[in-house]
C-alpha cells in the first residue's frame, strides 16, 4: 500500500481523472472530497463490503429452500 501524508486542502491525484482532497479534519473525523468520472463508483468501504457479504450469504445454498418458499407462497400476498 502506498502511504502519503497530506494536510488540510491538499489533494492526491489518481490517474488522469481522480482527485481526492482533504476538506476538513476534526478529531478522528476526516472529510474527503472526491472528484471522479461518473462511471467510477465511489462507496464507503463498509457499505460495499456489507453488500458483498449479503450477496454471498443469499447465494449460499439452503437445501430446503424450495420447500420453505412453496409453503410460504400459499399465504403470502
Amino acid at each position, binding site marked *: 500500500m502506498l502511504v502519503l501524508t497530506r494536510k488540510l486542502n491538499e489533494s492526491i491525484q489518481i490517474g488522469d481523472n481522480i482527485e481526492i482532497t482533504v476538506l476538513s479534519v476534526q478529531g478522528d473525523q476526516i472529510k474527503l472530497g472526491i472528484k471522479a468520472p461518473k462511471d467510477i463508483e465511489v462507496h464507503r468501504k463498509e457499505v460495499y463490503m456489507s453488500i458483498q457479504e449479503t450477496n454471498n450469504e443469499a447465494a449460499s445454498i439452503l437445501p430446503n429452500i*424450495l420447500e420453505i418458499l412453496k409453503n410460504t407462497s400459499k399465504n403470502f400476498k
Partner: protein
Amino acid sequence: MEICTKYHGVIEAEQKDIVHFQNGIPGFLEEKSFIILKLDAASPFYILQSTETTELGFVIMNSFQFFTTYEFDISDNDKGQLKLESEQDVAVYTILNVKDPFEQSTANLKAPIVLNTKNNEAKQIILNDPRYQTKQRLFPEKAVK
C-alpha cells in the same frame, strides 16, 4: 440455448430472456449473465439464475410487492448505464436471504436490482438512504414475552 439451473434443472432459454449485468454484482463481479425464473406459477418469488454458474441462484421478489412504501431515486449515471429512458421500463427486484423458518428471512433493501425491461440491462445499485438495510426483516421481530 440450454441453461443448467440451481433449482429448475436444465431449461431452454432464448437470448432475449438473458439479463445482462454489465459490471457483475458485488461479490460476483465475473457473473454478468442471468435469467429470471418464476419459482412456480403461483409464487411471488423468482430465482435470479446465473447462466454460467449452475450453483449461483438468488431468490428475489418484486420490491414493491412486499415493501409498499419503498422508494428511491435512480441516479443519472445509473440511468445512463442501463440506457433507461422511461420510468415504465423499470423493474425493481430485491434479493432475499431466505431463512428457515421463513419469518426470519431478510431482504436487501440497501441494494436493489434495477432492470431496464426494454433492453434487459440490469444493475444492483447501492442506496445511500439510511432507512434501508442490507438485512431488513420481512416481518418485524416478535416481542419476546
